């Protein structure tokens, strides 16, 4: 099975007993799912456990479900449920406001030659993480799904159990709230009003 095979082809192949197909899906989605759940719960360590749980549940359930289309949305729904359960277990508090014990990291180095630009990007990412942690779970979820992971409105609707109209409205409110809090939290040169 080729690396560039579509998700649908890989799901069908896995259901026919080709476990290499699941391995390809795992390698394809390991990083996005890990980043998503880490940012949802605000902890790298919990993100590791939740990503693992997501792929375990997906392995067990994939053979039994009729999921052939929209595998990505289905996988993100499992990841989302795992993250929300984790947040509930933590006692209703969304994510810790001080960054928690091990917030998702912002890489210390990047490939650009300009150290000033690199530092600015790093600081911006830190502020974005901080602001995300201040938002309600549903806002954080929809912002990550759309703006960081690039899911379509239809896919987001499947993940969150919402109509496309509700996704449109929630995303608009989430972006506005994010922008507002970002302006309050940061003084990023060139990004203010």
């Amino acid at each position, binding site marked *: 099975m080729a690396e560039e095979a579509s998700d649908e082809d890989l799901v069908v192949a896995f259901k026919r007993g080709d476990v290499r197909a*699941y391995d390809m899906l795992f390698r394809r989605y*390991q990083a996005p799912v890990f980043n998503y759940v880490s940012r949802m719960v605000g902890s790298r360590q919990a993100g590791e456990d939740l990503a*693992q749980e997501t792929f375990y549940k997906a392995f067990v359930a994939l053979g039994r479900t009729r999921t052939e289309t929209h595998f990505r949305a289905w996988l993100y729904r499992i990841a989302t449920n795992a993250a929300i359960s984790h947040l509930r277990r933590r006692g209703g508090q969304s994510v810790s406001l001080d960054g928690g014990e091990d917030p998702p990291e912002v890489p210390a180095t990047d490939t650009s030659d300009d150290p000033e630009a690199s530092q600015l990007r790093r600081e911006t*990412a830190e502020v974005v993480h901080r602001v995300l942690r201040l938002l309600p779970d549903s806002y954080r979820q929809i912002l990550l799904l759309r703006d*960081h992971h690039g899911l379509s409105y239809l896919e987001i609707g499947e993940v969150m159990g919402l109509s496309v109209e509700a996704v449109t409205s929630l995303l608009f409110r989430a*972006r506005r709230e994010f922008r507002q809090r970002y302006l309050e939290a940061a003084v990023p040169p060139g990004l203010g009003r």
Partner: protein
Amino acid sequence: MNCEEVSRRLSAYLDGELPPAEAEQVERHLRDCPACGREYAELRQAAELLAGLPQETPPPAIAQGLRRRLRQRVALLFVGLAVVLLMILPAASVLGLALRADLPLWARFGFLLSGVCFAGALLIWCCQLLRRLQSLVAYGFLAGERTS
């Protein structure tokens, strides 16, 4: 479209999720209305900030942990298989009752039917367990090869 109607559609416009006719109306409005234009720019900046977050490399612990959990599931399925195999004994004894000549014919037929249904269910269950076991073991080997 007035400002309020445009404002509600700005996010979808930004993502290219509006029908072409509505997108055109929003675009026209944005050209003429500085306030909505500012709001649109702000939404776009918010989306760009989130899109620009760096992608962290996942630790190998995720793949290792997944393999460990799947191995635990293999062990659990073996226990299930053992239970299914043990249940062959009661199925066989029910079928054995169908052979007893001292029982009335209707009772023997009843035992035969029950025994066949019981054995059939066990067979289906057994096949499902074996199929799950096969894919779990195969994936365990594959993941082991990849990480070794």
